[in-house]
């Protein structure tokens, strides 16, 4: 057992926990690397079939295979492995209690690994190019479904172990009082994850039964229940990301920001997500035949729009905490604190960039979840434009930044290169931003997603498509820097008494300073007004369309 002293006391890191967290995170890194390699191929193919960029030999015979590999590794494997590492960290390390059911947690890891190997094998063998959604009646190798089920089953066990650890820490009085905010957020993510895993396993067992000929397939039922997994999994990401952002703001300011986060407010916002997340599934079936308009409006539109309440609440809590810290250290003007944000601190710069990413990605989501404008955006590149901002520019970037703090805390080793970490955050963010905005513009013109075709015949702005490759290359470079830095930290770095050196900005908090959050409030209000105007723009466009009803 190693223990690590932060300025508020000691964190006990049990060796067993440490190994488990690092093992889960290494699996996450491997998945990210595989997904990143696949990204090179699909970005090269997608950037223009007739252009020089497509030198990797991408054709419609292998594009979808790479796309399936990319989708499974990024959306399922990388994110879930990383989230499980974070769940173990927030339960075991933050509560200073060893993981309960240590052997079961390793069993969960091996089941997940087994599932992942089956899925990767079936994709590589070319019999499972069905993309991550695997919509039947398009059929994949049964091994693909078995692997998918095994991975989800293992992930479900890991989430249960997270709750068991919290329960045992509580029963054994390892901590007094309430759960820390970050653990609380992780627990909300865990609850949503269990509902997603449950629906996912049901859907995929049904699909496997259909695949081996035991039952017939109801395509509509599949689409509804699959999105029970797909939609909930994305909200696990959002909630986990926000919990991580709170941790980053606090760690990056050497715990100074801690006093300025109203935990009751943040916990209320987390709780609201669970309330609104289940009714939101319907925005995936807005243009499907067979579902009633009332269901589409109630679930897809109304249910999904309410999800903006908790996310907006968190955005203000995080911006407000930053403002209060900077103001309390002596800068009092309304917007002066924005200039004083420590842009070279990876935790803080990542937090700001993730919030920017979420703001743009979030507003791009609104027309898609509104019944009529969605007719323009459904299944166009607009959709991946939106979710790359959420999952890559948001969740992935936040997890990357957290790992720069997580590894030093766990191993008491210094980060291999702090400088590389600082540059990496920006490289990755701008790569994803270029990629996502290009996709959005092309999608606006009607370029279909998940389609390998030459857009020059039908789109007027086809010539910007090579920017997809530019953005993807930058992001992949950022991903490679991150993987290198993480592995070098575990293998090459030396122990240090102050492993977080260079990753922290110290604030000299003056007692009685003016700590109002008015600047953050004004900033948030202006951003929301701009975003709402962008949302209404989608209706103006709709009014110029041909009539359809």
């Amino acid at each position, binding site marked *: 057992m190693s223990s690590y002293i932060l300025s508020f006391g000691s964190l006990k890191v049990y060796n067993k926990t440490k190994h488990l967290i690092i093992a889960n995170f290494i699996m996450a890194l491997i998945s990210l690397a595989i997904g990143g390699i696949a990204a090179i191929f699909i970005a090269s193919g997608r950037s223009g079939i007739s252009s020089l960029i497509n030198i990797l030999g991408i054709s*419609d015979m292998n594009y*979808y295979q790479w796309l399936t590999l990319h989708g499974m590794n990024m959306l399922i494997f990388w994110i879930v492995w990383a989230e499980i590492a974070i769940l173990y960290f927030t339960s075991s390390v*933050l*509560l200073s209690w060893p993981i309960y059911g240590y052997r079961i947690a390793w069993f969960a890891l091996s089941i997940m690994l087994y599932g992942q190997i089956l899925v990767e094998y079936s994709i590589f063998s070319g019999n499972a190019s069905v993309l991550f959604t695997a*919509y*039947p*009646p*398009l059929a994949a190798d049964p091994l693909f479904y078995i692997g998918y089920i095994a991975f989800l089953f293992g992930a479900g066990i890991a989430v249960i172990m997270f709750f068991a650890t919290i329960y045992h820490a509580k029963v054994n009085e390892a901590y*007094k*009082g*309430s759960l*820390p*905010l*970050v653990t609380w957020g992780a627990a909300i993510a865990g609850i949503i994850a269990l509902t997603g895993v449950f629906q996912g396993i049901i859907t995929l067992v049904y699909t496997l039964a259909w695949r081996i000929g035991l039952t017939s397939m109801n*395509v509509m039922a599949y689409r509804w229940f699959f999105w029970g997994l797909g939609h909930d999994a994305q909200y696990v990401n959002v909630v986990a990301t926000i919990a991580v952002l*709170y941790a980053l703001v606090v760690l990056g300011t050497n715990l100074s920001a*801690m*006093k300025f*986060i109203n*935990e*009751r407010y943040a916990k209320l916002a987390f709780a609201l997500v669970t309330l609104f997340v289940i009714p939101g599934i319907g925005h995936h079936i807005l*243009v*499907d*035949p*067979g579902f*009633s*308009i009332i269901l589409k409006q109630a679930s897809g539109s*109304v249910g999904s729009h309410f999800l903006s*309440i908790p996310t*907006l609440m968190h955005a*203000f809590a995080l911006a*407000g905490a930053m403002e209060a810290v900077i103001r309390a250290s002596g800068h009092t003007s309304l917007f002066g604190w924005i200039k004083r944000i420590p842009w070279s601190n990876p935790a803080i710069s990542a937090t700001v960039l993730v919030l920017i990413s979420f703001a743009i990605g979030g507003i791009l989501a609104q027309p898609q979840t*509104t*019944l*009529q404008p*969605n*007719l323009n*955006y*459904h*299944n*166009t590149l607009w959709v991946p434009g939106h979710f790359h901002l959420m999952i890559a520019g948001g969740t992935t970037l936040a997890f990357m930044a957290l790992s720069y703090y997580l590894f030093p805390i766990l191993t008491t080793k210094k980060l291999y290169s702090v400088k590389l970490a600082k540059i990496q955050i920006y490289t990755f963010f701008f790569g994803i931003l270029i990629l996502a905005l290009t996709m959005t513009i092309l999608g*606006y*013109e009607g370029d279909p*997603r*998940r*389609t390998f*075709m030459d857009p020059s015949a*039908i789109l007027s702005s086809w010539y910007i498509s090579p920017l997809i490759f530019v953005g993807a290359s930058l992001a992949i470079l950022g991903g490679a820097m991150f993987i290198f830095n993480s592995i070098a930290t575990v293998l090459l770095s030396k122990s240090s008494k102050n492993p977080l050196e260079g990753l922290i900005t110290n604030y000299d908090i003056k007692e009685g300073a003016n700590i*109002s*959050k008015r600047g953050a409030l004004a900033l948030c209000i202006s951003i*929301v007004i701009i975003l*709402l105007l962008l*949302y209404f723009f989608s*209706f103006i466009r*709709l*009014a110029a369309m*041909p*009539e*359809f*009803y």
Partner: protein
Amino acid sequence: MVLIPRSFEEWYKRFSKEEKMWISIALATALILVLTTLTWPLIDPMRQVPSSAKEFDVAAYKELATNFSNKYNNKLVPPDIDIYILAQQYYWSVSKIILKEGVNYRFHVASADVLHGFSIVGDSAVYNIMVMPGMVYSFTMNFNKAGTYYVICNEYCGYGHGGMRMIIEVIP
């Protein structure tokens, strides 16, 4: 507090004035979005998600689509004729149709095998719906601008997916 456990009294604080204001703004934003969503079908009734979907018999529908294709492929479709389109891996049952500007046409779209997407792209117009096996989707369409529109498949349906294309020529 954020990273370490604290007692209830320590973290359960009142909301500040800014926090209260922001909660009301977040609530108002969501209500604006919801009200817009709910009222827009009344404000713009001519651009709706089609609500007519029926289960169908593949063989019978195939005959309708083949008949339509034999008669009107690459020809002007009269206004009172229903347009039947069947999607299969990897083509549409008709390769080109010619329509009149400003005339209401009744479309029926269905799939013979896997999921497909029916996406009309052209001249700043984009329209996307899902095409499913087992369900025929029917809707009315009125092109208010002459020009060439492409129908592409935008739900992945297999290796030949990118080549699934049909043309709608709208003449004045």
